[in-house]
């Protein structure tokens, strides 16, 4: 099976401490946030109990995870069709993709989906190693303009036209 038990090993998975720390912070924040809620008169339960339970559970899990990590518990990363786990993580590509997604969310209302969608497709393909930039831009443009018209005509939802207002 693909998901066999998490292995014990001599190597300590240090980044798992980061995960535990993040979970701890989320759990604590959940508890603190819940403390600020008011419980009305005549409301025997109120909105606090559920977040208290969840936040405390999260804190407990963070501690357990940290202990397990220290004892040599290593995460079993997920496999997949196109995933080759024998290579180290390629952070540059991930960074490029995240950058492109951020650019898309910053520019979409200004330039409109028809333009940023095309850039998103071409940029992501480029980041993932495609070197046929012109073709990718063309494919992206066809996809984004077609999806704009699909939403406009078939679903009656006009996506942001941006600077192409009046052209589309």
């Amino acid at each position, binding site marked *: 099976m693909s998901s066999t*038990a998490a292995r014990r090993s001599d190597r300590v998975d240090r*980044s798992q401490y980061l995960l535990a720390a993040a979970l701890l912070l989320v759990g604590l924040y959940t508890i603190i946030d819940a403390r600020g809620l008011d419980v009305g008169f005549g409301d025997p339960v109120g909105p606090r109990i*559920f977040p208290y339970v969840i*936040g405390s559970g999260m804190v407990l899990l963070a501690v357990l995870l940290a202990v397990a990590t220290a004892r040599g518990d290593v995460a079993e990363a997920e496999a997949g*069709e196109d995933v080759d786990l024998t290579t180290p993580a*390629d952070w540059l590509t991930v960074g490029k*993709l995240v950058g492109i997604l951020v650019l898309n969310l910053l520019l979409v209302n200004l330039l409109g989906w028809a333009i940023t969608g095309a850039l998103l497709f071409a940029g992501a393909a480029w980041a993932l190693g495609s070197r046929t930039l012109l073709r990718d831009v063309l494919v992206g443009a066809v996809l984004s303009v077609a999806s704009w018209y699909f939403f406009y005509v*078939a679903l009656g939802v006009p996506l942001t036209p941006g600077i192409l207002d009046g052209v589309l």
Partner: protein
Amino acid sequence: MDTLGLLLDGLQSALTLDNLAFAGIGVLLGTFVGVLPGIGPAMALALLLPVTYGLDPTQSLIMFAGIYYGGMYGGSTTSILLNTPGESASVMTAIEGNKMAKGGRAAQALATAAIGSFIAGTIGTLLVAFFTPSIADQAVKIGAPSYFAIMLLSLVLVTSVLGSSKIRGFVGLFMGLTIGLVGLDLSTGQARLTLGTLELADGIGIVVVAVGVFALGEALWTAAHLRRKPLDVVPVGRPFMGRDDWSRSWRPWLRGTALGFPFGAVPAGGAETPTFLSYIAERRLAKPGAGFGEGAIEGVAGPEAANNASAAGMFVPLLALGLPVTATASILLAAMQSYGIVPGPTLMADQPDLVWTLLASLLIGNTLLLLINLPLAPLWARLLTIPRPQLYAGILFFASLGAYSVNQDPFDLGLLLAFGLIGFAIRRFGIPVLPLILGVILGPLMEVKMREALDLSGGDISGLFSEGLSIFVYGLIVLAIVVPVALTRLRTPQDVVEEEEEVSR
């Protein structure tokens, strides 16, 4: 009227030309997206949700049914023709299926998968039609304490049955529950975990979570570990089976169905367990010359039928109790809620037409799948050779389009990216996705029921135990936690190793 009559009525209203067209489009789109490597049925459904925005509830349900079964079939095609399955439910299909494909029997493997899925899906849907009304009748009488207990049971089962690391299962669950907390508290209207933003006051939609975690997370995770050498795709002609294949397939189909349906209908974590059990059963029952390990058709027929029967089984808790037990069911539930349809015991009484049309369209979608996809298999196989940069760029494109189109607010794209990064992290740390998704959708429901129960008892904890059924369910929860632990203690480690070897061999 009896069940059969109601189902026939449903068939009648589903069988218009328009509706057939929607079912057909759904099947084609679902298969298209499902075949793409890295995309399972749940992701296919989440990505294709925007396509149904303009439709009325009945038509969109019909299209969902097509997308759902199409996505399932697409997934098995991928796992037979490529050796590495994309989703846990196809793992067992891939073992013998890919061996068959490499031995030049890809056509037969695809055919037994398709026909087995059809048979299992049809029997499964009929069973749903027969069971759901009576369960819904009983479920109307279930009070808040028992509802709370049942939801807790389903979360415990999904979290502790699936995956190898219990602690990671619970981490996923609690991440989901925390996400479910975000938004205004339903009864007092106070903001929780909104970080002071207005956009989060409405809470976080399950679709954004699902698309972010499944689609963006998968794309980012694959980007970090992209296989530089493309996988070999086995070429395939039109699927067909010889006389011998039929006689070897029909028993596994029925046994797989019998195993799959109950596992889908009880909240024990979807198709992973029954496909595994079906594979083991066929392996044990096979004649010595069946060639298990070298591409035995029984090893494809059984697990595929189990997979689809459990996919049908999940409609029982969804329709009768309003309780989703898989990621796909969670997305279906969210889609139904967006049309103001609230699945649960009263749905059967309030909108019987809708339920029967849905069940009828599941049957139609299943039939169309067989008719359309057997001839199209060679075409689908070619999708597997799409260059990966463009494939994942396309996934990012459509994920962003889906998230943006709902409110046309860039904030949603930011939220999508945040869940994409969470999706990346849970893949890196081996945290299962299903408990997270179920936590998001069941958390808020559980809180409502818990507060209802405790309001009645004036805040006293005994309110949770005020029904016989709830006490019984808590008993089951204790068993579900204690029994697996006790079993692993009793079994010597050597047995476990042998069993794992047997499967991977």
